[in-house]
């Protein structure tokens, strides 16, 4: 039998025992670690912002001599009085509402569907992810081919099914829906995956208990599943909303805002103002309004949510 026998301690003899190398404090250490990243972020986030702010108060028509004198709030007034601007806002909101709405509904349904499947879950998940890997600008471009009225596959299939074959990208009534369908294709898997992860991370025991307590499926969904899933659903909805409001790539490659300006979103109109009309002043004013709207709106919703997740992570 062995016994525990660490070497006998040298009996403590005051301070010589301790190497009193006083290093920098935790606070300094932690600040040093974030400094490089902070500098980059501050510089490349705040400088452009400041620049945009500056330009938004000046006259800056790049076709006429670049940045010039201070004009106060004129640019903001112009923007707010601009019908095209408001139309782009409306388009953006309509797009966001329907795209995110459909993605949420379909995504949640699909998540539940996949969760109930027992065989081949990994394969299903892998295939579902694929759209998320692709560049929207690239696949969007290819969707133009799929939407094509002459040799597009979608109309071919619709024709086979005896359904009307719309002019997806050319019809002013349908073009926005063509964008929405593309966005749903691209992002519905995102919603489905996250809700699925949420479903799978729910504790098993309460559901087993409910089963033993004889609760109906509907009751379990209503009192347990959805309430427990709510934070995840909120998070997804908010992330998707922020993204949808910023929609640019798909518009740029699929419709270029057309037909006419019917699918022109805020970001696309902003781009056009700045880099086609070269009205940097108005574009900057628009950018700041937009920024303010998106950030303030979304972050008030996002912060408590993320904090909640962070707190939960801390408990682990």
């Amino acid at each position: 039998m062995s016994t525990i026998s660490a070497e006998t301690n040298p009996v403590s003899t005051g301070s010589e025992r301790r190497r009193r190398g006083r290093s920098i404090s935790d606070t300094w250490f932690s600040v040093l670690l974030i400094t490089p990243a902070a500098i980059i972020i501050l510089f490349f986030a705040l400088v452009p912002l400041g620049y945009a702010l500056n330009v938004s108060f000046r006259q800056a028509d790049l076709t006429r001599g670049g940045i010039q004198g201070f004009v106060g709030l004129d640019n903001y007034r112009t923007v707010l009085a601009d019908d095209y601007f408001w139309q782009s806002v409306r388009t953006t909101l309509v797009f966001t509402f329907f795209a995110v709405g459909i993605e949420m509904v379909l995504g949640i349904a699909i998540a539940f569907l996949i969760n109930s499947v027992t065989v081949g879950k990994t394969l299903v998940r892998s295939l579902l992810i694929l759209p998320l890997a692709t560049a929207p600008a690239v696949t969007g471009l290819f969707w133009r081919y799929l939407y094509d009225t002459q040799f597009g596959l979608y109309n071919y299939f619709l024709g086979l099914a005896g359904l009307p074959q719309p002019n997806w990208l050319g019809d002013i009534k349908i073009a926005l829906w063509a964008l929405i369908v593309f966005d749903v294709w691209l992002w519905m898997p995102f919603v489905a995956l996250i809700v699925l992860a949420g479903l799978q991370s729910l504790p098993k025991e309460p559901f087993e208990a409910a089963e033993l307590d004889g609760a109906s499926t509907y009751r379990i969904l209503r009192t347990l599943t959805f309430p427990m899933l709510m934070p995840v659903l909120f998070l997804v909805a908010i992330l998707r909303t922020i993204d949808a409001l910023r929609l640019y790539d798909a518009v740029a490659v699929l419709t270029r805002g057309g037909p006419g300006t019917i699918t022109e979103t805020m970001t696309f109109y902003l781009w056009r103002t700045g880099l086609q009309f070269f009205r940097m002043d108005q574009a900057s004013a628009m950018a700041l309004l937009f920024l303010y709207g998106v950030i303030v709106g979304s972050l008030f919703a996002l912060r408590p949510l993320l904090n909640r997740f962070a707190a939960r992570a801390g408990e682990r």
Partner: protein
Amino acid sequence: MASITLENLVKHYGAVEAVRGISFQVEDGEFLAILGPSGCGKSSTMRMIAGLEETSDGGIYYDDKLVNAVRARDRNVAMAFETYALYPTLTVYENIAFPLRSAKWKSERVDEKVREISHTMELTDLLDRMPGELSGGQAQRIGLARALVREPAVFLLDEPISHLDTRQRHRMRQFIRHLHLELQYTMIYVTHDQEEAMAMADRIVVMHEGLIRQIGTPDEVFNDPADDFVAGFVGEPPINFLEGSLVQSNGTLSLRFRGHLIPLPESLQSRGDSLPSEIKMGIRPFYVNLRLDPDEPYDLAGEVFVVETLQDFCIVSIDVDDERLQVVAPLSARVQRRERVHLKLDPEFMRFFDLQTGKAVGLG
């Protein structure tokens, strides 16, 4: 209430056999404990009884009805979970009311019943809280209350008090045992803590590696273990084992352990032929006596390794050659580390096991 019968129950997860063909019966109104170390298959067994897990083979009967194909919600089983399994989105009140609402009770009757049970279990102050705001002990009681609020065919408890501190654990032990006496529910209690099983159960099923090692009353399991596993698993401090061979000397049948000859008890002297030659003797630390007087007869001699003073007695660990034995001694026994001591074993409490198979071979 119902009696439960398991018939050759098997459960495998892929290639892993968690339960390897077990059979036993729980009488109507009986309190049965399933005891075993983690991974012995006890939880799988209980989950199959509840219907939360499908059986791989074998049958489960409630009274005389085969229930393998009956869904969990239709078996009328109440269960208390190790992790409480409270509904995190509902208040304590709604948690307790949940099974009643599932059964479509009228809300006045639900209210009445919930108030009644929370009164008995001293939960009235907690009814408006959410599960996240409860201490472990409170959550535990609510889990129990939720299970008790209805009248199930069988009441299953899965390690229900393992997360409580000593004080609360003893209180819940008393409470659960008392509850059983009052209500006479059929109860199955799964635990890895031998003391809990001993203290509460009418009968204990000891499981190990998916098999039943012994079924018996606490006394039988403690005093007449069926094999060396049961002997070693039940009892605190754990039983001492001495391995050796049987020898005849001077007409006495003895166990040769290291250099010592320990005579077998009278009752076994005449059974020499039926005993295996290689044998393992088990004796609990309560029945080994320290002999400080060198002139008294003794069975073993060794050196004190460590003395631990507990509240009402000491546990002395003694190295006999390279085997460490434990002895329970009164507080008045003053022995020192490294001291040489003699030990006398009480023949009445010696238990013998076949060294090869581990099976019990005879009582002292």
